């Protein structure tokens, strides 16, 4: 499935919408997008994953990269991830470092 990504930064909130499948190929695009939004020093990163059907460890590594790049003050929201992706976040303990929510803002 084709991977697409869109981002915008408004008032220090970076919103990135991911759809399709996030593997090691598309993770390169995701990482570039993170680098781009990082230039505006956001304090919140909102990842809309409602239409993301697959995420490998390459995607998890970009989440870790985001925090390393934008600092500990960054709050990450994962909006509406599919069950299998929640499962991956939980298996790897990443659910403690991100906020899984149904909508943003709550």
């Amino acid at each position, binding site marked *: 499935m084709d991977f697409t990504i869109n981002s915008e930064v408004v008032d220090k909130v970076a919103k990135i919408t991911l759809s399709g499948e996030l*593997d090691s190929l598309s993770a390169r695009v995701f990482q570039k997008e993170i680098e781009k939004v990082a230039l505006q020093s956001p304090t919140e990163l909102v990842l809309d994953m409602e239409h993301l059907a697959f995420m490998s460890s390459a995607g998890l*590594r970009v989440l*870790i990269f985001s925090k390393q790049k934008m*600092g500990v003050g960054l709050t990450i929201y994962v909006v509406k991830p599919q069950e*299998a992706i929640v499962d991956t976040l939980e*298996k790897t303990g990443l659910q403690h470092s991100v906020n899984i929510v149904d909508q943003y803002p709550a």
Partner: protein
Amino acid sequence: MNSRSYFVFMQMELKTFPATVDSLDPLRQYVKDVSQQAGLDKKATYNLILAVDEIATNIILYGYEKAGLEGFIDVLTEVSDNRLKVVFEDDAAPFDPTTRELPDEEDFDLPLEERPIGGLGIYLTINGVSEFSYEYINNRNRNIFEVDIKSP
């Protein structure tokens, strides 16, 4: 018994993919189709696809691309005794992913910014299938994924 195992071996289906990152998407689609034909449920199918994606990525990026080599991944599949078996064979340098150091519980409790980045893929692989094994035979890496097919 010998003739039966020979028969089973002959039934393994082979499909070959170029060892490039562009193959990951069609490879996942292929394993998804095989899993659905074998009767795996949605969750088991996803976990197997995740496992094969992780190992294929390692083979492509480290076995071939980083070594400056071009090559292929042969994907063999079979269903027998309520088990789906998927075998990857490649000609890159011997690499046993099971010897890789896995993240442990303590790593999982660390804040995101302090996490060691390696090992997540192989962790998800081993956790995603009933059995994962590796062997090096006839100068080929063989990564073997096996998933029990639960009756509905």
